[in-house]
């Protein structure tokens, strides 16, 4: 349970345990491996990060790029415009209400509330039988 990382979550919700393997074991090893790579990456980064020979300015965009990729994947599985529109509105609102420092927290809270308010609209047009999870 404490080995839970974002990637583990992403994987467990997308793939299924292969036939012939006990699911509990499968998930355990998946989590353990993920944890291992994560640890290895962080340690290597801390040890060698200072020694990189070239200028890494802008490399932090990799994070944004990852979010862009995940967003593209989301648009393929959740084909409703409301969550995206609500998020944009809440993000703009949060930026002007809370400022850059508290942006993510404020935007997340706002969008949670907005989505709960939109629940009837989104689920009403989209009955439960039409689950889009693969």
């Amino acid at each position, binding site marked *: 349970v404490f080995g839970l990382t974002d990637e583990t979550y992403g994987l467990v919700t997308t793939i299924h345990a292969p036939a012939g393997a006990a699911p509990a074991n499968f998930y355990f090893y998946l989590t353990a491996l993920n944890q291992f790579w994560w640890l290895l990456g962080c340690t290597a980064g801390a040890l060698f990060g200072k020694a990189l020979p070239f200028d890494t300015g802008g490399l932090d965009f990799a994070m944004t*790029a990852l979010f862009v990729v995940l967003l593209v994947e989301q648009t393929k599985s959740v084909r409703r415009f409301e*969550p995206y529109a609500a998020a944009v509105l809440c993000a703009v609102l949060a930026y002007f209400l809370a400022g850059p420092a508290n942006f993510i927290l404020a935007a997340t809270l706002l969008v949670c509330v907005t989505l709960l308010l939109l629940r009837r609209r989104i689920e009403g047009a989209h009955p439960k039988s039409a689950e889009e999870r693969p």
Partner: protein
Amino acid sequence: MNIPLSRIIFTVVAMAALTIMTRAVPFLFFARRKPPAALDYLQKYLPPALMVILVLSAFKDIPQANAGSALPMAAAAVVTALVHLWKRNVLASIACGTALYMILIRIFI
């Protein structure tokens, strides 16, 4: 910077404890009962909204007086999305977008 070692250790321990707590609480709370339907709903529709927020959060630290510096970022984000729609390869998309961004900010800023 000169931070005493005891303070570093204390900070790490405190952060570790809180991180474990944020992960343990949902499991403790829902070990015996079924999560309410509202949570199911959020679980499905929150991720796309959160991704929008996380992408937009990259732009939040750009000062308004210097709005032009958002252009390389926006261009790189669009290219990342296009590459991903085209190849559907996570690493390739991230590598292309990041490389483009690093090139752009060196040329224009």
